[in-house]
């Protein structure tokens, strides 16, 4: 019995691990009395796996049996892998027992598709419903919505889960059809629309009465696989920005394609997952969400792909030497955020600190500005102006920064490029 549950856990955690989302933020829930659990607005990471990824939620599948045959997925029906299924009580127990020991912040429940979408969704909804209603559990729940699930089940899921997500996986309809012939684009977009509607209505109700029942208070997210199909970064990022602005998604995750089914000739042969590209996409995503960049300033028709050698913010600065140097004692917040080597935290310190007196390079360094980078892009009174980006060539600076990075990188850590 014990051996069996260990084995099941191994199979169904292993099957769920390719979902990159692990956020537990976005919901503040107090414990209403002597019951179990709270949700904290900023989320808590309870451990970090040997791959460096945060473990916040018990990320697990109800089952890895699946009727679909998607080329990029380890659980596709034509794969000969060990299969298992949990009962809803088993998942509920595991969640509660892990939670009580402070191992986790909550549950991330996903599943392979059994019989059909609604059949699977019903079983998943039962788990989250039992947690909330039978066990009075107030911790975090992220639930995956199965593509093609009915509006009613998505609605029910949203009343218990903090976050719902539907994975798009492949950024263009045409390529999705090619790699996942059983899925259709509408089947993915519809549940996203139901979730969006549910959240909108909840927000409206909330204006009228504070007691309006919650609906997915931590919003919805999705995941895009990067490098399984030939989409450019521009295609991926414009989809992401439209999801952020039109569907009001909280997060878009990018998952560097891991060649789990290398026998499938529809997929590219990769020597390793495109981790550098994935990292650059996240950086671009952050520039869009926190640094007030527009997507077309980061990628556009002239430069449809991100530079793998340097980060997108530095890349932007080197393409626009005419905007620099920026005077840290005068420039507004948005421009200060565009200085390579300055993040939102040090930008805030600069804005607050300069009210009390002129900032010098020494003070900037103490505030956490990376002067090794920033020195080429700023003036603050006493810095020599001889090596500013407007004076020296951007090409020269790019070479300089690339070499600094290469010197730090270990030999086997070299850039991983995908082979087409």
């Amino acid at each position, binding site marked *: 019995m014990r051996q069996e549950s260990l084995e099941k856990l191994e199979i169904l955690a292993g099957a769920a691990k390719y979902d990159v989302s692990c956020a537990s933020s976005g919901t503040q829930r107090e414990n209403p009395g002597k019951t179990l659990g709270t949700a904290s607005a900023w989320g808590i990471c309870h451990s970090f796996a040997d*791959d460096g990824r945060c473990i916040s939620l018990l990320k697990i599948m109800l089952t890895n049996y699946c009727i679909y045959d998607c080329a990029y997925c380890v659980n596709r029906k034509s794969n000969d892998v060990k299969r298992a299924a949990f009962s809803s009580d088993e998942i509920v127990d595991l969640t509660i027992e892990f939670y009580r*020991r402070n191992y986790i912040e909550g549950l991330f429940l996903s599943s392979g598709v059994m019989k059909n979408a609604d059949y699977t969704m019903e079983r998943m909804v039962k788990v989250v419903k039992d947690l909330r209603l039978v066990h009075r559990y107030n911790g975090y729940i992220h639930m995956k919505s199965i593509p093609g699930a009915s509006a009613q089940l998505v609605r029910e899921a949203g009343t218990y889960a903090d976050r719902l997500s539907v994975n798009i996986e492949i950024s263009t309809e045409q390529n999705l059809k090619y790699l996942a012939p059983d899925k259709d684009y509408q089947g993915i977009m519809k549940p996203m629309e139901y979730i969006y509607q549910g959240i909108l209505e909840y927000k409206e109700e909330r204006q009228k009465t504070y007691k309006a029942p919650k609906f997915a208070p931590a919003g919805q997210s999705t995941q895009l696989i990067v490098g399984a199909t030939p989409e450019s970064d521009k295609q991926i990022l414009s989809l992401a920005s439209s999801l952020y602005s039109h569907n009001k998604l909280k997060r878009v995750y990018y998952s560097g394609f891991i060649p789990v089914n290398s026998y499938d000739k529809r997929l590219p042969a990769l020597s390793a997952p495109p981790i550098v590209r994935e990292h650059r996409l996240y950086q671009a995503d952050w520039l869009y969400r926190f640094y007030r960049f527009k997507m077309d300033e980061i990628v556009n028709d002239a430069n449809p792909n991100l530079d793998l050698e340097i980060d997108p913010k530095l890349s932007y600065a080197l393409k626009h030497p005419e905007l620099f140097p920026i005077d840290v004692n005068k420039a507004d917040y948005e421009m200060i955020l565009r200085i390579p080597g300055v993040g939102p935290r040090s930008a805030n310190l600069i804005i607050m600190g300069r009210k009390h007196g002129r900032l010098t390079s020494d003070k900037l360094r103490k505030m956490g500005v990376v002067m090794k980078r920033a020195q080429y892009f700023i003036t603050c009174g006493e810095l020599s102006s001889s090596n500013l980006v407007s004076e020296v060539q951007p090409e020269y600076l790019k070479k300089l920064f690339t070499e600094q990075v290469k010197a730090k990188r270990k030999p086997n850590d070299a850039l991983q490029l995908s082979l087409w």
Partner: protein
Amino acid sequence: MVVLLYDKTFDGFLSVIFEIFKNKLKPERIEGFESQENILFAEKISIGTDPEKAARVWEALKKRLTERAYNAVYRIHLSGAADAEMILYRFMLKVFASPVNIEENFGDPDVLRIKKLDQQICKEAERIRQFVRFQKTADGIYYALMDPQFNVIPIVVNHFEARFADQQWIIYDSRRNYGFYYNCEQTMVINLSSDKVNPLNGKISSDILAEEELHFQELWKKYFKSTCIEERRNEKLQMQHMPKKYWKYLTEKQG
């Protein structure tokens, strides 16, 4: 040189600040009564704790600082950080010398020092929320041992009270040899001397563990292993987020 001695309580420290301003003292050190250091030619002055004087200093701080900043003063004193008293003293000299709030004057090294130190302390408090690992005992108490560099467990007690309101728990500080016990009604400060806890890995001896406890530890270790993507192995990143000094009591990091 002047060394001021006090009882190490927060009220005691605020009383010291009160006397510094009242008598224009210029201390080079502020230490607890029990301080062992014998400094040649030092003039030692003992200062008693006076709740009224302490309250006056506290009210004055509240008037001049935002909530975050005056709480930082409390946290830094509580933390037991090296030289905390002198760092706070230099900061308060500037707070009270200025007609405007100076807490954001990060060009000033004493102000920046407070900000940085408080960030470190809050970060470690967060590490407690992250890395506490409870073990369930046969009598239903969830026990966790921690070894924080700063004295931060008091700051996170309310987080655990709210979250685990329906279970009894103990979070114990091995470095300072004291802890907190929550009995589903209230939280108490406790001192334990038990040979049932292995100080090397924080584990409770199996004869007093709840029946299913070791099984859940096994399940957790299995989960920790299974959720890792081998193709992406990155121990450097792991250590950056979960520094090695926290590993000794982490169930998933024990063989």
